[in-house]
């Protein structure tokens, strides 16, 4: 179980607990459950890399405590 921090730099900072083998799509659903936006409106980035929905966190090498950027579509 890892904990990821998502920050949208506009006031929304969210800590989400998830498994390493969850996909980014699952992570978006968890974030949506916590923030209240819709899951398909969320875009997760790291600098200019937009993370794709079907790839797992493990494959993106997202480790515990990593900060991700939260943007909206």
């Amino acid at each position, binding site marked *: 179980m890892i904990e990821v921090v998502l920050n949208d730099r506009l006031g929304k900072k969210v800590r989400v*607990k998830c*498994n390493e083998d969850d996909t980014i799509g*699952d992570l978006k659903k*968890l974030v949506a459950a916590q923030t209240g936006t819709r899951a398909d409106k969320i875009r997760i980035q790291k600098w200019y890399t937009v993370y794709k929905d079907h790839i797992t966190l493990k494959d993106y090498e997202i480790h515990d405590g990593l900060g991700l950027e939260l943007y*909206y*579509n």
Partner: protein
Amino acid sequence: MANRTDPAAKSIRGTNPQNLVEKIVRSKIYQNTYWKEQCFGLTAETLVDKAMELDHIGGTYGGNRKPTPFMCLVMKMLQIQPEKDIVVEFIKNDDYKYVRVLGAFYLRLTGIDSDIYRYLEPLYNDYRKVRLKSPEGNFTLTHVDEVIDELLTKDYSYDIALPRIKKRWTLESLGALDARKSVLEDDFEEEEEKDENEQDDLEEEVAHEKDYYQTRSPARERDRDRRRDSHRHRDRDYERDRDYDRERGRGRDRDRDRERDRDRDRDRYRLREEKDYGRERERDREREGRERDRRDRDRGRRRSHSRSRSRSKDRKRHARSSISPRRHEPEDGSAREEPKKKKEKNEKKDDGTDHPDPEIAEANRIRASLGLKPLKL
């Protein structure tokens, strides 16, 4: 300049009509080439031409969330605000289904509740196919009536949040609308009658089977028992006991029968674990046969009495466990497995929502509601 709403347009729901589309999607539409090239300076008439050229509907798609031409035209309509008559014309026209869907969508966004129901419900009869662009960018197929159903039931469609409308029964009770009359009502009535007839037929069938069993000889029944006993190792003891009892010629008291019923219950419960319906039905029939053999007195009354009783019990027991009576008839597999699982696992849930740490339990609860597996700790 080009993106300003017509100053003569009235505000919808207290705000600029273009604000019905949220900010991010709105900016995406303004930056879109289709909007810039084709939707510049459109009026109501020229809008119709553009609408006739539509060949798919959809929201935003792709990694960039690019809007479809359908969305651009919706935005344009919000901007110029055509008259209600024009919108109704869009909806009523039969030739161009995409124009119809466009008009319906616009009415859903801007119309009043009773109008929405009045004009959109007839479109339930339109079952033509329409092309839908999925958020990934592929095309899928849907139908006009499915689209209308989405508009009337969901609150978010094609990346635009649909304004809330009153429920239909509220409007009916207010008297603003008549009760919903479906075009398929006559068909439904026919179906109901058919179902009622089938129910009667089923009961007749039961009566017929009684006669059928009357003709079978007891000797044959016994042979069938023995054959069947050989491959039912689990229930062999029960079978043997019963045969033994029968040969002994035990009495046919009510109590005996009840005991036998209880044994049968237990067997039936076990059998269900194997989920072998065919075998069970044969067993039931064989049991019926045995019952009949044992009855000399009160043949007519008793037989029908017990058989109907046991039969109804059979039917019910197919879905219920004999131990715990249930009110509803749940699905077969889950119902039978659930009581067993509950016994075995006590109260340990397998989705981790009873974890001692409340945060993890909460997280697991959210995950379970989303359909994800629990956290691996």
